[in-house]
């Protein structure tokens, strides 16, 4: 009797596990035809896309995505947000988990082979963030012999240490909040990555940090679309143009980065055109 109960339990548990993994694998993107649009944004970037509880993100990317979706005919309540981490953006688009990715997604030739891009909707620059009272660092060259923080997997630090050949020591962390903590406590002298990302953090603690306003490396943020969505791409480009024309873009930039003394550009970047 006892033996049977136990083996049944094990079999049941195994079946349950299979069912659970099966669920985990799916997810499935909601297509436009059921009246919603699924958009992938960052959930962990203040100022760009930061989850504020219950799956509702906020930030510049989120505002841009909401505007574009609006132009495509979706009300804000028809948008379903999904977290698109750097590692899974391509897969999400290919699998149809999301309809669109607006997540500090730089347009590169490599990625163009996997997905389509509309835009760019903003051109970010690699920049350096230091403590507000720091007078010693004004350019990348001043980092010689100082400590620089960057998130693991980011290539921004390499631009400084390898491409520019500046002898800065690198402290690597899991994400930029950890870098900001180290910067606040003076354990590192500077943090480097896209100026938008840095501005997002700086805006959280107005007056604590300053951006050097450098232009070290362009990052052209595009709207990621599944391969072969030329028509959708044109529509998105039109929406982006409209967003800059009617002043919405400036409004979004000011709302999200205004506190950071970040000299954002309010010019529309030239569109790449759709394939």
């Amino acid at each position, binding site marked *: 009797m*006892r*033996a049977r109960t*136990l*083996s049944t339990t*094990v079999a049941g*548990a*195994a079946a*349950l*596990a299979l069912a*659970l*993994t099966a669920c*985990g*694998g799916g*997810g499935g993107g909601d297509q436009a035809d059921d009246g919603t649009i699924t958009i992938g944004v960052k*959930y*962990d970037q*203040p100022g760009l896309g*930061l*989850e*504020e*509880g*219950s*799956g509702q993100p906020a930030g510049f990317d989120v505002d841009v995505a909401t505007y574009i979706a609006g132009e495509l005919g979706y009300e804000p309540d028809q948008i379903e947000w999904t*977290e698109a*981490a750097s*590692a*899974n953006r*391509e*897969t999400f688009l*290919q*699998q149809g*988990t999301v309809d669109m990715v607006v997540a500090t997604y730089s347009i590169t030739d490599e990625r163009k082979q*996997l997905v389509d891009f509309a835009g760019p909707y903003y051109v970010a620059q690699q920049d350096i963030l230091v403590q507000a009272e720091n007078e010693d660092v004004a350019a990348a060259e001043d980092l010689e012999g100082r400590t620089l923080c960057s998130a693991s997997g980011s290539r921004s630090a390499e631009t400084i240490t390898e491409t520019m050949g500046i002898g800065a020591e690198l402290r690597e962390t*899991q*994400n930029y*909040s*950890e870098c*900001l*903590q180290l910067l606040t406590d003076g354990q590192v002298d500077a943090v480097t990555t896209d100026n938008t990302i840095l501005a997002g953090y700086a805006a*959280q*603690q107005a007056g604590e940090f300053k951006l050097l306003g450098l232009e070290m490396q362009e990052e052209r943020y595009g709207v990621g679309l599944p391969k072969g969505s030329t028509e959708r791409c044109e529509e998105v480009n039109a929406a982006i143009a409209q967003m800059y024309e009617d002043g919405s873009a400036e409004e979004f930039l000011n709302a999200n980065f205004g506190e950071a003394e970040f000299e954002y550009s309010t010019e529309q970047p030239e569109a790449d055109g759709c394939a």
Partner: protein
Amino acid sequence: MSVLKTKEPSRLFDAPGPKAAARQRVYSVFAALAAAVLLAWVYLGFNRTWEVVRADPGALLGGDVWRPAEDGQWTADKWEPFLDPTLWTGMVLPGMVQTLTAAGISIVLAIVFGLVFGIGRLSDHAWIRWVCGTVVEFFRGIPLLMLIFFTLAAPLAANQLFGVPFGTFLVTPLTAVVVGLTLYNGSVLAEVFRAGINSVPKGQSEAAYSLGMGKTQVMGLILVPQAISSMMPAIVAQLVVLLKDSALGYIVAFPEMLRSFSLIGTRFQNVIPAAIICALIYIVINVSLSRLAIWLERRNARRGKVSAKATVAPGVPGVAPTDVVADTTATPEDPPKG
């Protein structure tokens, strides 16, 4: 038998006499002082007032250095977000659910994996024993983090090896974490199961064979059920390992509990308070589970005593001497990682 197993006074020392008691008081005072200094250093350091104290130790007597400083970690601003119930329902709870989901799926799959490979290592066929042994030893020797990284890179590997186009299959962070946890903990459990099955008195399988049962029946009806019940404490202890290890999911952006707290830290710039609260939650969950493992063990031990008269040393197998096992409760054969 064991020196410390019971709550009665230890036999390593006598009840202190007046002199020893006085000495012990001195030691206690020193230990308390050392602990107090350490805690004060941490408190004041986090409060950013340690520098003040270093410059002027007299400040310790005043209240100012102890009051939460505005730029320190104890300021109300950094802790207030945790008073908001929506933070718990909206961010912490979903993370906790993900942590428990990953741990729950993994422990079940790990038990299945452990059973298959543990029994495989006891097979009558040499090649099955060899294959199962290699698999188990391989996954026990590989860091969990590497297994997770590799699982995430599986689509790339499939593309390189077999030309499988990208996007054919999706490896979510959950999948990567579950695969990693299953392979590693399954291998640990396989060893535990093997020992458990070996520990079932030989007379039982002999009796079963003499009743005309086949190999599979003996294994499935006689050996495995008994091994599982004797392994319950080890399985629960392994669950503690699993829960802690699932925190590695934070590295691959799996939205588990540590990542929820990391996001809270990003949102409210309170990385350290968030980490402290996160650690407390883990400790509470894991201490409770460890207590459950101890309870299960004691229950087994009680039953073990009853059957001990009839059979040879039962107890919990897996670790060498029976005496060792009785007190290691939360330490399974392999100590936890992650």
